[in-house]
């Protein structure tokens, strides 16, 4: 009875909540929190799919129906200096399948800590500003959840470290362009069972080597006053791992690839320094992942010490 789940590296890419007064600030965008500014908030996300790619074969599965993954993520960011921000996030995740006998799962997923450093901010002609950023992100499972019940597992239970580089151009007229790419190393995962079959091989071990992941995001948007509307295209490539076999379950180290389109609306309310964000994304092509549609809504508060 096969099933698939959303890719884990997703939180690194999509949880773009932490914000400065006028701009969202995320790990992969071109914005920074001002020195001594703090932003904290919650993000709700609802992701669901009824079709998935078994390897490259797109299919549905009567024993899953529609799989939904919901999460509430606590996030916070702090401007150490004008050029250095740190961020943290922790999602609580729960899963559910509408058909079939399988039990949903829930729990704290991975605690993520990130730091972002602005290498460069320079006027480009007289049209706008070019910024370059680097970021380091570390993730560690916050609970002892199992990654061996995909797609109902709440995560992949691997420790992760990403290095990210971002280039951003903000035009004076309001539009902006952003490009960001990251390489993610993942540590081996421990299962509760003594052997498993993946990628054409029986492995007599309870440990699973996890392939690294590369992703990039291109986004463009428009900012007018307190409103910012970016749209983005993200591609994730897992650099190794096996396909889900015909009518098999997905496996933690599968090659999970996808291309995703995302639209966001972010608005900053001036008086109580609140930021509001709603977004929608859709996987347009993939391999060993569900063709998910994700709706997100977030609220955050910014204050300065």
């Amino acid at each position, binding site marked *: 009875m096969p099933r698939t789940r959303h890719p884990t590296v997703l939180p690194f890419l999509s949880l773009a909540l932490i914000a400065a007064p006028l701009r969202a600030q995320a790990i992969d965008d071109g914005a920074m929190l001002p020195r001594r500014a703090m932003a904290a908030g919650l993000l709700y996300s609802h992701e669901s799919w009824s079709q998935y790619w078994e390897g490259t074969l797109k299919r549905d599965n009567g024993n899953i129906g529609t799989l939904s993954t919901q999460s509430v993520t606590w996030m916070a960011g702090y401007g150490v200096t004008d050029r*250095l921000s740190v961020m943290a996030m922790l999602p609580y995740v729960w899963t559910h399948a509408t058909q079939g*006998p399988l*039990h949903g799962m829930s729990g704290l997923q991975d605690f993520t800590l990130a730091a972002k450093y602005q290498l460069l901010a320079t006027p480009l002609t007289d049209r706008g500003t070019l910024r370059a950023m680097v970021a380091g992100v570390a993730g560690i499972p916050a609970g002892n959840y199992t990654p061996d019940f995909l797609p109902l597992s709440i995560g992949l239970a691997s420790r992760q470290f990403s290095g990210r580089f971002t280039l951003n151009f903000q035009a004076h007229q309001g539009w902006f362009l952003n490009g960001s790419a990251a390489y993610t190393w993942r540590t081996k995962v421990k299962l509760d069972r*003594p052997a498993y079959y993946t990628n054409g091989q029986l492995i*007599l071990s309870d440990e699973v080597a996890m392939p690294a992941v590369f992703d990039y995001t291109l986004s463009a948007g428009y900012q007018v006053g307190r409103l910012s509307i970016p749209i983005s295209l993200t591609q994730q490539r897992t650099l190794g791992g096996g396909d889900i076999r015909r*009518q098999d*379950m997905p496996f933690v180290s599968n090659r999970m690839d996808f291309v995703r389109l995302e639209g966001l609306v972010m608005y900053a309310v001036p008086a109580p320094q609140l930021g509001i964000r709603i977004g929608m994304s859709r996987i347009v092509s993939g391999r060993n992942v569900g063709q998910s549609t994700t709706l997100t809504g977030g609220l955050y508060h910014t204050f300065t010490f």
Partner: protein
Amino acid sequence: MRLSLRRFLLTVAVPCAAALSGCDNTITFSETLPPLQAASLDSGAGSWQMIVLSGPTQFTVAAPAAETSAVYLAELTAINTAQANLTDAQRRTIAYWSGGGVLRWNQILRGLVARFNLPPAPRPDGTYPVPDPENPFADPQFPFANPPYAARAYSYVSVAQFEALKTAWYWKYQYHRPSPARLDGSISALMPVGDLPAYPSEDAVLSGVTVEMLKVLFPAAVAEITQRAAEQRNAALWSGKAAASDIAAGLALGKAVAAVFIARAGADGMRNAVGTKAQWQALADSALARGEIPWISRELPPRPPMLPNFGQVQTWLMTPTEVVTERPPAPPSTSSPQMQQEVAEVRQTVDHLTREQLAIAYKWNDGAGTYTPPGHWNDIAAEYIRDAQMSEVRAARTFALLNMAMHDAAVGCWGVKFLYFNPRPEQLDPSIHTVIGLPNFPSYPSGHSTFSSSAAVVLSYLFPDGAPAFDGMKEEASISRLYGGIHYRSDIERGKEHGARIAGYAVRFAQQDGAN
């Protein structure tokens, strides 16, 4: 800027290094095999009791050429030449097979089972295709190596290997031809070469018997199987363990023994195990006529039950009458208060699992895509066989006894499952959700409990020091089905008792087969 860069390194690099430290991506394997130095030659194995063959002389191995003959000396020269030109890949092949042919083939077999243990995907019209041995490379692939299929496959390979090796041992001690590395000081022993006579080569016997069995059981893997078998023979040759004529004689003997088992497998009832639509309906009608709720498939679309006639497949150590007389009593009626209680227990358990209970459910899940419960017990046995440094023929005996018991347990259990056609807990209470896949066949009794109990009894007899460990694993494997939400307690209890009774046949055989 300097300050911030330092802070950046502190805030990013240090936590990241901490997150990664001590947890690189190198995995630890549980079943590495050091070069086999057999604790005993088991020189009397040629007289151990046969199971299917009439005796070790059912197949005659012709006398080898003299050790001084030109033909044989040329074979030794060829080994010398091969050893002088070994590539790294050839050395790796030698190192791999030096771990022991029986253990290596068991690992390969577990891999094949896991590879082929996938049910057919449904067609767009909601029906399911049946894997076709005449067209094994198609979708669905053949076979669907589910637990009964796997139990049978493990047993055929193990018993055929055991009978072939007993025959080989008999002829080895008729001819007493030493291995090349013992005869010729210029030939190195690149794997442990003991005093076991080399003619016919036990490695070649194993390669011949196993390749033929596996080609029938897993025809779509023919290329890989053939290559492995050739590598095993090459390793024996390159390592100075066997000469070309030792290998040729062993290969022929192995293939001849395999033919006997292939003929048996063709007529053991497996071909009828899938059954027909009318038979499936008759099972449900029979349960209804007894006033019971019949099992129905909970898959969407509903899938035909797994091998309903497997209970009629030929056993190794039991007569058809014994298969029936050893059966457990009927399960509680689906309308009884006891059944209601048992359903409630499943519900209560699965909704309040601790992390430890969940880990036990996953540890023993052994569901689709794995080497199955019988494979799990082969995995357990392999490490005991390795640690006991068993000779090839004794290792084969251990796997044969274990896998005959589990095959007979599969036959016994499946007969009872389809006799009573009892529904799974989730069918009686759809609010029960399982944390492992719900098997697509009737509930009573628990197959995993039956397999595990039969395996634990046989292994406890063979490895008395391990008995408490085997018993603990049997209990854990059995109760894992309650934690998983797929079995009632009485399925588990009656399954364990049934498995132990069936294992008694293997233990009684082992007590008098001459190997002790």
